């Protein structure tokens, strides 16, 4: 019991780290966007320089603000999740309610996404604005104890503010990669017009490098971080339930049932990686290692 007490105290560390990381993430994303706006303004030329700069700055700030307040909605919309009806999904609600009592957290909004595979994710900006979403496959294929293990894992992400950082990364970075792509494409179209202008060629090169590098760098950072988080959420899930059995058995089932077609941007949010990816770029530690760690608890 004393050990679990120490675990609880270390939550505050996790929360602080996540808040700081989120703050820096927003800052970096904002800087990258502003740099892009500046480059675009320079390429387009002096006539609209300030107009583009001002408009671009406003759009960038709006983007970050909307990303912060609406990240959960965007993540839910991207996987086409529906609110879980309290009567139809009574057991799902009951299990989450029990876990919120064990952890002292407010009850997240519950969602269901239609997919036969077993997977789940949590999102939101803080515990009071959090959501948990599970696949219909998870509700059908997992027994109560296993489902509770999965939900406890998701609730741990909520408790230590992983959701804020992870969802922000997914939404802000995911969108950056889209914007960078658009930028790159428009550059190819516009480049033939003023080929003789030396200055614009330099900015063109910088623009391309930035557009290629920005999403790669940020997503690599995100990948490195989210692996450690999964172990953390596994162990706090055990702390809520005081037993690893449910989660272990759920992870064993998930091993063969987690592949889904979801956007690469939201993939790191899930309890088990939905896409087949190389180990280096994987957002999740191998399930075998997670099961092994849980069995040692």
């Amino acid at each position, binding site marked *: 019991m004393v050990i*679990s007490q120490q675990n609880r105290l270390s939550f505050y560390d996790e929360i602080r780290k996540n808040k700081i990381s989120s703050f820096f993430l927003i800052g970096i994303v904002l800087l990258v966007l502003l740099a892009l706006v500046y480059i675009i303004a320079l390429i387009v030329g002096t006539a609209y320089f300030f107009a583009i700069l001002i408009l671009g700055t406003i759009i960038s700030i709006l983007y970050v603000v909307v990303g912060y307040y609406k990240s959960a909605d965007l993540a839910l919309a991207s996987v086409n999740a529906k609110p879980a009806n309290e009567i139809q999904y*009574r057991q799902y609600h*009951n299990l989450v309610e*029990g876990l919120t009592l064990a952890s002292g957290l407010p009850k997240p909004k519950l969602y269901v996404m239609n997919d036969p595979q077993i997977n789940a994710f949590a999102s939101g900006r803080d515990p009071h604005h959090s959501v948990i979403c599970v696949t219909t496959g998870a509700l059908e294929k997992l027994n109560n104890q296993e489902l509770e293990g999965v939900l406890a894992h998701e609730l741990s992400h909520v408790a230590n503010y992983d959701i804020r950082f992870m969802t922000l990364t997914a939404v802000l970075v995911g969108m950056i990669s889209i914007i960078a792509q658009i930028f790159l494409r428009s550059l190819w179209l516009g480049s033939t017009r003023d080929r003789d202008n030396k200055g614009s060629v330099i900015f063109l090169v910088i623009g391309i490098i930035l557009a290629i590098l920005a999403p790669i760098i940020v997503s690599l950072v995100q990948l490195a971080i989210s692996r450690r988080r999964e172990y953390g959420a596994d162990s706090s899930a055990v702390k809520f339930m005081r037993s690893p059995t449910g989660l272990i058995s759920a992870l064993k089932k998930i091993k063969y049932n987690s592949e889904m077609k979801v956007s690469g941007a939201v993939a790191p949010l899930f309890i088990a990686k939905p896409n087949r990816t190389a180990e280096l770029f994987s957002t999740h530690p191998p399930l075998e290692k997670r099961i092994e760690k849980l069995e040692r608890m």
Partner: protein
Amino acid sequence: MVLWLWITISAVLLFAIIIFGYYNKFVRLINQISNSLAQIDVQLKKRADLVPNLLESVKGYMRHERGVITEVTNARKALVSAGNIQAKVKAGNELQGALSRLFAIAENYPNLKANENFLQFQNELTAIEDKVAYARQYYNDGVLSYNISTTTLPGRWFASLFGFRGREYLQIEESERAVPKVKF
């Protein structure tokens, strides 16, 4: 002279900050404890509210099991009329015991077991049992944190200064802990 003044002022400030910190910590933990007690209370009330409906759905099938039905009814009455939280928790445990016996007997009635209404009540009451256990776990976690911070130094000094006393854990009843006897 000025230096000494500054040292004294910062020492007093530092001391005040530490005292405030500890005071707020105690208050926060006490709030957590009373909040989780309130949660236990809510769940016990839900349990008591569900029982009449459950008995209604059972009535038609278990006409010959008067004993266990009276037991459940009486346990519910005891829970509803219990005054303080300790008594409520105790009565809640007794009601849970009576309900488990009722569900065990229901196993003998295939028609009842297939009854949609009955299944719903059974699931709901099982969920409540889990919730009570979780709320109690959270209560005891809170008491543990609180007791540690009021008995270790320097928290101990501040606790006695402000009159914060240790809290009691919610114990599991001996009868609950015992393995139920199975008769054939």
